[in-house]
């Protein structure tokens, strides 16, 4: 349509932008035109270039041109992963609409929306609704909800790359499918940052037989990556420390810039770094804040506003600020420790220098020595423009079960129609009729086919063929559990005098005694009492306080990054001149070289060390934590076939450790078969069955599928008699219903055969082509030390339980003597 520029809609927008002194970017213009030509599609653009206005204005222009195609009620549904984004987006859209002269109503609906406003929306829906995948599903669980979705012209999914790699992506796919079923002409548009698998991302979002297009912004963000080195390599520990000595380097950076975001990887580290910085520079108190997911929402909103208004010099944060509204004053980002991935590193860097033509600036601060190699690897990856994939989830039966019950709670559903709807989306493209029937059986009769549960009436078939939930209690419990974000059991922390501070995990609370001091939200607190799922505290003057640990949030390095790491390490002893990180590390690498070995690109290193703790085996495939978990239990399994053994397993992004109380029968003769690529998949399956990994994966599945009722923090326990743990249910199902699809899903999530098989096979192929080097070291080496101090461990054993206990007791007796 060459005359698109002459349409009244385009003219109005063009004039409006001109008045404001803006010219559209070419990708915006392209989006508008494609939208006008009835395309669905995906916009790929860096933040700060007005990607919102590409899709949003496309809908406005189309409306101005063809108002007759737009009916009363919801016209555009805007899905975004973050609640905090919605508020500001709605403000920007409202301003635009008003200035353009439209009478559209724009509203936000999510978990924070007050009840009276929700009710008002339900009586009369706005023209544009900004919402989250979870909230859409909640809408589906309401009576007579289809009337709201009859005339939706466009569904836009913002930050699609964030949703794609999680089960929230599946929720989004399902939501789109249902809305599209009600408004058959709706156009689907995604907005995403650059990822490795853009084409796949588009196909997952729009699996339908419609015209689709991909629009890539040519504009690129310029990024400066600066690594911050200590004065001497000895100042950095080998592992297990915070890199506290680096604080003196960080303070001047904070002063040089207007506002600095300091990213850490865990909530625990953010609390610690906040303390370290104010200790080093007390003058910053009042100008520095802390922001993470367990801090009270009001406090977080306050901090976000303070950043926007330029009232803060620095904020210590976690991934809680990865996404979100643009903070204009932020001109510098500091990444402490590893960012665990190229995309995340770039995303964080992009939080600074936000306007289109500014540069982003990020300082990488290593917390232990090996991370310096990582910085070198990130730089290399950015230079070569390699960004990792976000892999979509498939065959998530737990999400399917939840969705079916959601429909049953809402208007009820019919079998064939629903199967057709589900079967079209990417996640369930390979769902068989049998599996679908199993899910139906699961929600209507309970467990397996032989054994219907008499007392189980969750979903009931009516005479008209509709599946419905009849019990109000079950409906209510289901609504409370809609969603796929599973958190640890959390307790609210509250001052005696009132006022919430944040949340800590039940697991951490269980170790706290009355009077203990701990840190939360940058404050030192004294635990006084636990009451009704609340921890009551008062301020403490104690110098020494424990920092809570939150179990969630350990991320593995992504595969591209590990690939670069391996390369960097292999030529670490002969770095080129520009790689100051590697040159700097020379003394440490030399230590590794002398005491053990530095694996070259065609070598694979295994270290054996005997200590007081027992017998250690360390191996360094450099494949990232997830792959190492599988490899470790596989190798443990193969060794235990030679002689029965019990291993505890630790892994990080570089390698893994097997630790046993008995000698590990591994030597030059059998090491090649142990690490062989033969029988790989059979052995992996056997080792997964022998480990606890599936049971751990089942935790989330049990909650999503409604087998475990999650208590919301702050709510009183209303259903105490329904409390159980996913571990218990896993065991019961393994005993009585081994063919349960949710169990199968747990095993699949440990090792996704489709997805990971290739990678694992490639890794073992590489190992088999390498020279395997077995070294007996006298003591921990720079490579093994970080593994030793890692506290997250799993177990794998093929020994008889009683024999194990007997030996432990004998050892204990020996230790006494």
């Amino acid at each position, binding site marked *: 349509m060459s005359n698109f520029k002459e349409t009244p809609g385009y003219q109005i927008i063009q004039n409006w932008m001109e008045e404001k002194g803006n010219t559209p970017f070419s990708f915006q213009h392209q989006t508008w035109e494609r939208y006008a030509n009835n395309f669905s599609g995906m916009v790929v653009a860096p933040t700060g270039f007005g990607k919102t206005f590409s899709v949003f204005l496309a809908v406005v222009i189309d409306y101005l041109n063809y108002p007759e195609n737009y009916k009363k009620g919801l016209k555009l549904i805007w899905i975004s992963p973050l609640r905090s984004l919605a508020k500001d987006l709605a403000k920007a859209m409202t301003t635009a609409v008003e200035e353009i002269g439209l009478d559209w109503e724009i509203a936000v609906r999510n978990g924070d929306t007050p009840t009276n406003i929700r009710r008002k929306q339900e009586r009369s829906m706005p023209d544009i609704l900004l919402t989250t995948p979870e909230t859409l599903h909640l809408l589906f669980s309401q009576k007579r909800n289809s009337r709201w979705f009859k005339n939706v012209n466009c569904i836009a999914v913002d930050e699609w790359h964030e949703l794609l790699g999680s089960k929230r992506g599946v929720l989004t796919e399902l939501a789109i499918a249902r809305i599209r079923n009600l408004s058959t002409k709706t156009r689907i548009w995604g907005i995403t940052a650059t990822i490795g698998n853009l084409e796949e991302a588009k196909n997952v979002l729009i699996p339908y037989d419609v015209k689709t297009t991909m629009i890539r912004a040519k504009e690129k963000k310029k990024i400066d990556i600066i690594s911050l080195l200590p004065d001497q390599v000895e100042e950095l520990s080998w592992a297990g420390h915070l890199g506290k000595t680096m604080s003196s380097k960080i303070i001047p950076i904070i002063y040089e810039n207007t506002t600095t975001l300091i990213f850490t990887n865990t909530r625990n580290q953010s609390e610690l770094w906040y303390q370290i910085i104010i200790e080093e520079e007390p003058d910053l108190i009042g100008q520095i804040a802390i922001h993470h997911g367990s801090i009270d929402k009001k406090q977080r909103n306050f901090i976000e506003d303070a950043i926007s208004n330029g009232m803060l010099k620095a904020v210590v944060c976690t991934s809680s600020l990865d996404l979100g509204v643009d903070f204009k004053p932020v001109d510098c980002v500091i990444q402490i420790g590893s960012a665990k991935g190229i995309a995340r590193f770039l995303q964080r860097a992009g939080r600074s220098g936000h306007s289109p033509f500014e540069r982003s600036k990020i300082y990488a601060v290593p917390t232990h020595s090996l991370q310096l190699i990582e910085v070198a690897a990130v730089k290399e990856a950015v230079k070569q423009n390699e960004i990792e994939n976000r892999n979509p989830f498939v065959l998530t039966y737990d999400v399917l079960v939840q969705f079916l019950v959601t429909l049953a709670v809402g208007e009820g559903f019919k079998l064939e129609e629903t199967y057709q709807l589900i079967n079209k989306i990417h996640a369930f493209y390979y769902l068989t009729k049998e599996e679908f029937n199993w899910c139906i059986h699961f929600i209507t009769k309970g467990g397996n086919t032989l*054994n219907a549960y*008499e007392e*189980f009436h969750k979903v009931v078939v009516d005479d008209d063929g509709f599946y419905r939930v009849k019990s109000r209690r079950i409906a209510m*419990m289901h609504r409370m559990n809609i969603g796929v974000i599973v958190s640890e059991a959390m307790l609210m922390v509250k001052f005696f005098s009132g006022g919430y501070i944040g949340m800590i995990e039940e697991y951490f609370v269980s170790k706290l005694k009355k009077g203990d001091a701990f840190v939360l939200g940058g404050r030192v607190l004294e635990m006084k009492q636990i009451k009704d799922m609340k921890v009551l505290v008062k301020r403490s003057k104690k110098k020494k306080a424990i920092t809570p640990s939150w179990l969630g949030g350990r991320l593995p390095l992504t595969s591209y990054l590990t690939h670069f790491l391996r390369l960097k390490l292999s030529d670490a002893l002969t770095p080129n001149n520009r790689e100051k990180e590697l040159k700097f590390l020379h003394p440490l690498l030399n230590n590794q070289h002398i005491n053990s070995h530095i694996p070259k690109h065609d070598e694979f290193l295994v270290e054996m060390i005997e200590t007081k703790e027992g017998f250690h085996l360390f191996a360094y495939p450099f494949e990232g934590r997830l792959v190492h978990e599988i490899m470790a239990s596989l190798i443990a399994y193969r060794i235990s076939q030679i002689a029965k053994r019990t291993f505890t397993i630790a892994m990080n992004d570089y390698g893994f450790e097997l*630790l046993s109380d008995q000698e590990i029968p591994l030597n030059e003769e059998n090491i090649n078969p142990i690490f062989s690529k033969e029988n790989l998949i059979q052995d992996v399956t056997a080792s997964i069955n022998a480990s606890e990994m599936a049971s751990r994966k089942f935790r989330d599945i049990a909650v999503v599928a409604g087998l475990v009722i999650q208590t919301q923090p702050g709510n009183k326990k209303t259903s105490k*008699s329904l409390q159980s743990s996913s571990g218990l249910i896993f065991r019961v*199902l393994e005993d009585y219903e081994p063919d349960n699809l949710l169990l199968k899903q747990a095993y699949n999530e440990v090792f996704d055969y489709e997805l990971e098989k290739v990678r694992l096979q490639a890794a073992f192929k590489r190992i088999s082509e390498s020279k395997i080097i077995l070294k007996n070291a006298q003591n921990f080496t720079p490579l093994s030390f970080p593994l030793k101090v890692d506290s997250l461990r799993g177990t794998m054993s093929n020994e008889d339980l*009683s024999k194990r*206990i007997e030996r432990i007791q004998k050892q*204990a007796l020996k230790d006494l003597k």
Partner: protein
Amino acid sequence: MIYKMHIVSKKITRKDAVLEITNQRVIFWEAQKSLILSDLHIGKAAHFQKSGIPIPKNVLTTDLERLKQLILHFKAENLIIVGDLFHAAYNKDLDEFKAWLIQFPYIKIRLIKGNHDRLSNAIYQQFNMEVFKTELTINSLKLVHDAVEKPTNSFIISGHIHPGVFIKGRGKQRIKLPCFQVTENQLILPAFSLFTGLNTRQSLQKCKNFAFTNDGIFEV
């Protein structure tokens, strides 16, 4: 899943009473021909099912089969249940229990009520059991559901907390097992039902933990 149980026991003597603690979650008190047990939580699976959570009902069947084997093995004539016999409201699981009881017309059941036992007295009467509101004293033994540490002349037996213990070994091994917690003055029973969790918090002072597996019982 019905299997042949391997029963192993260990005798302890407290206040003249000889008690056999077993690896099958019960105490046998020979002098009284009594099995002492706690936390059966009958009706838990059906209660979950009623609330839309599909738990296999074989959970109860297995628990009852285990109890049957224990009664026959020890030739017991009495069951003393120190609380949480029934998990919640009346449901089909209780009917199964009722039907199961018919095979033991000679067994006398005494229940000390636990926090879960909130059914009306009429219902307990249907099961032909004697119900005690808070405690029952037999010779030098005092049986309660949840023990409070208070000096008394009797030896207190209770349940409620579902005790468990960690066994830690070289090479960072950790094994979690159910246990009996025993001191000079009191004993806490493990939960009898297998559909229960474990609580590893140590609640008693100077306490011995007797942990057990399918084929043994031992002090930790």
